[in-house]
């Protein structure tokens, strides 16, 4: 795995801006899907060491929902929408039934899966448009389990990858409730440099 000291504030700003544009498009798609106003914002983008990803949601044993997909094209990697289970439940209930509480229904699970797909798709689309790099998302997979187990699965899948991942904090706003999630980009080795280069903020 490659060593990376960190991105400059300028580079992180550029990636956050991509997140903002992507989330604008995603909000429109989500609102249409659930027939309610869904707003999205990106308070922060940061580079997090792979091994620290579980800490974003409170440790390896925290129950989470993960929506995971592969990226292919001119740059490759994978993307994960990671939500604490209680946040995921709240989000799903608000989007599907407009209420809170209770276990996830099949429809709510599908809604979360689709949410991950829309977010990742919109982000990749924004990135593609700004850079001219073709980035194609796969069909998403869904899991509800311990954070550590989900991260460890991805770690193994992408073992030829960067040591750091890009975390795009994403805040959903549905029916006056704010719910925090993490959209995480796991770039394959070299892919982050390709993207940063095309955004005009390469370190080299």
């Amino acid at each position: 795995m490659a060593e990376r000291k960190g991105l400059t504030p300028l580079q992180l700003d550029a990636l956050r801006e991509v997140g903002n544009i992507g989330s604008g498009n995603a909000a429109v798609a989500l609102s249409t899907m659930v027939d309610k106003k869904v707003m999205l914002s990106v308070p922060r983008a940061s580079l997090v060491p792979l091994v620290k990803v579980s800490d974003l949601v409170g440790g390896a044993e925290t129950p989470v929902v993960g929506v995971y997909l592969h990226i292919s094209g001119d740059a490759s990697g994978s993307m994960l929408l990671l939500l604490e289970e209680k946040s995921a439940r709240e989000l799903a209930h608000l989007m599907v039934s407009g209420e809170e509480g209770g276990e996830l229904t099949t429809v709510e699970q599908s809604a979360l899966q689709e949410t991950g797909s829309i977010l990742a798709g919109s982000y990749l689309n924004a990135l593609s448009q700004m850079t001219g790099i073709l980035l194609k998302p796969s069909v998403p997979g869904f899991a509800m389990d311990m954070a550590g187990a989900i991260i460890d699965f991805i770690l193994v899948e992408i073992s030829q990858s960067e040591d750091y991942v890009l975390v795009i904090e994403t805040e959903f706003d549905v029916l006056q409730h704010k719910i925090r999630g993490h959209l995480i980009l796991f770039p394959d080795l070299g892919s982050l440099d390709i993207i940063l280069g095309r955004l005009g903020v390469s370190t080299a």
Partner: protein
Amino acid sequence: MSEEKTDEEVVNVGVAEYYVTHNPHVLASYGLGSCVGVALYDDRKKIGGLAHIMLPDSKAFSKPGGAGRYADTAIRAMVEEMEKLGSRRKDIRAKMAGGACMFTIPGAKNPKNVPGPYLGMQIGERNVEAVKKALKELKIPLVAEDTGGSYGRTMRFFTSDGSVVVSSIRFGSKNL
């Protein structure tokens, strides 16, 4: 989650690490997905080791890195350390947990489209097989396992008596 035993020191064995001790500790690997936790125990000397294995085979990589990452190298390294502490090979028994497949992406074949060893979705299963192969080569009996499926596990190994507790969100805790 054996609460009655938590006065013993807990050692977190992270991804690609292993830990061998002759002290009464709780060796724990949290949130095993496709990774496999392998506990080796010598009941005569009360010497134990836990490895949090990530990949099946070190020989598939030109720059493999630490021994703890791979089934073939991690188990051998633990056995050697246990022997240094006074264990005899024939007294060592093994238990393992993990090796799940957390996500299924329909139609996924080679997401990276790059040359090199493709790891893919069956890695959990391959990790389990590689552990069994390594144990067989070292003539260490596998006495218990809880592997496969599509859910994460936490493994706690009590080196005072060799007991192993595996817990998951879906199925709670069980003794191995």
